[in-house]
């Protein structure tokens, strides 16, 4: 018997994704981002979130996908993973839905251009939508970023 998860739904292009609500601190509209030099390209910079400075990354860039132009639908999802707080720039984020962990299938090797290691699985919502569930700790994995920087150097 699986457990019920409340999930925030967001979109990168045509693909829909889910993050558990308890990992999300807030969803914000696009705000001015201060560039931070000498960081990987997908790190957009930092923002002022009500007095707290939070780093913001472009999820598409993080996965090696082409970044898209922002629209007024673009949102920043502030996630919390352990001690880290990071913002994800996404194309749309306006849904909350419930899924059952029983309905999360293992992902094929590459989904929407994203490697399986970043994914927890593909979830099916009661309405029949397919959501790609992210593996947050992999997405926020810093060791990999260090390697990326060393490669670029």
């Amino acid at each position, binding site marked *: 018997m699986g457990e019920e998860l409340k999930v925030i739904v967001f979109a990168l292009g045509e693909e829909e994704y889910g993050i558990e609500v308890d990992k999300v601190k807030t969803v914000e509209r696009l705000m001015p981002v201060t560039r931070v030099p000498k960081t990987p390209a997908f790190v957009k910079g*930092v923002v002022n979130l009500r007095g707290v400075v939070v780093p913001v990354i472009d999820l598409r860039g993080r996965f090696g996908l082409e970044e898209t132009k922002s629209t007024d639908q673009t949102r920043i999802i502030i996630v919390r993973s352990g001690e880290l707080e990071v913002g994800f720039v996404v194309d749309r984020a306006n849904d909350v839905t419930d899924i059952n962990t029983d309905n999360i299938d293992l992902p094929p090797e590459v989904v929407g251009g994203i490697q399986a290691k970043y994914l927890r699985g593909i979830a099916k919502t009661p309405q029949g939508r397919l959501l790609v569930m992210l593996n947050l700790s992999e997405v926020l994995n810093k060791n990999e970023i260090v390697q990326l920087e060393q490669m670029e150097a």
Partner: protein
Amino acid sequence: MDIDRLDSLMNLFSELLIDRVRLEQLASEIGRTELSETVEHLSRISGDLQNIVLKLRMVPIDSVFNRFPRMVRDLAKNLNKKVDLVIVGADTELDRTVIDEIGDPLVHLLRNSLDHGLETTDGRLEAGKPETGTIFLRAYHSGNHVFIEVEEDGRGINSEKVKAKAVENGVLSAQEAARMTQDEINNLIFAPGFSTADTISDISGRGVGLDVVRSKILSLGGNVSVESKAGIGSKFSIQLPLTLSIITAMLIKLGSEKYAIPLSSIVETGILSRDSILNVHGSRMITYRNAVIPLVSLGSVLETADFNEEEELESEYLVIRKGDKWAAVIVDDFIGQSEIVLKSMGGYLGQIPAVSGATILGDGQVALIIDPNALFK
């Protein structure tokens, strides 16, 4: 005084400061006399309140120093050495958050002095020194900083050994080492992985200690350095900000981006004509006072996309100083001095070269704080 309440008070003051700066900006934009006067009054009051709150957070360093006499006595006994610990300035006050953090580094420096600095009683007699070695532990205020010194009359640093070890450990090349002054070589003992202890005693010789001390002090916004004379002794100097979270900075522009540089590092500012830039062995330099100092292009260091100083006839610059090293840093424009609140950037980004933190400006935008020490090669 309840620590949590003090911290809440301090946080509220940080926020108040941001709004105060913002109000000052708005008042000058709007230009109404009554508004400006009221904001000025508010600024004075909040400044006075801020000073009182800051003083509430200050604690005499004696709370850290008071365990050292016993510690030094015990260690000296273990090492079979005779030591006098002389403490000066125990009533010097520090911000309580700094106090909490400064204990460990000081313990390490004291152990280091006892273990590596001071000679054995036989060694001292042979060197014509009194049998009992002396360690001075001093604390005092100067300007916006607190200074803590650990000084002993021991054997001093063997610069040749340090140089050899540094080259051997790959910390720097033999040619670079040959160009360094003795002081610079001595300060290599803070480099990671460094230890010239012939026998690694269980007290402090493992080569992991001094670089950890340095990182800790740097993370507090401070500095540590060493002066030493072979045969005479060594003095470790720690410099710490009086308070962790608010500093005075010079705000500058690079194209569309704004950055903050701690005022304490800036010696002076000026404008130079690009014709006056000298090219010395491939490095760009300018004459400054009676010397020639290197020119640093901040725009290049920070990879700024929309500012190219080559296109200007004249460039604004500021002179920074680290010990006896000087440098001129080219910026696009000066915005002005401001008190800024240091903000953490969280753990995700890690250490960013040349950036020591962030602050939130009066207009709500985040500005990065430059670490001037990183601009020296």
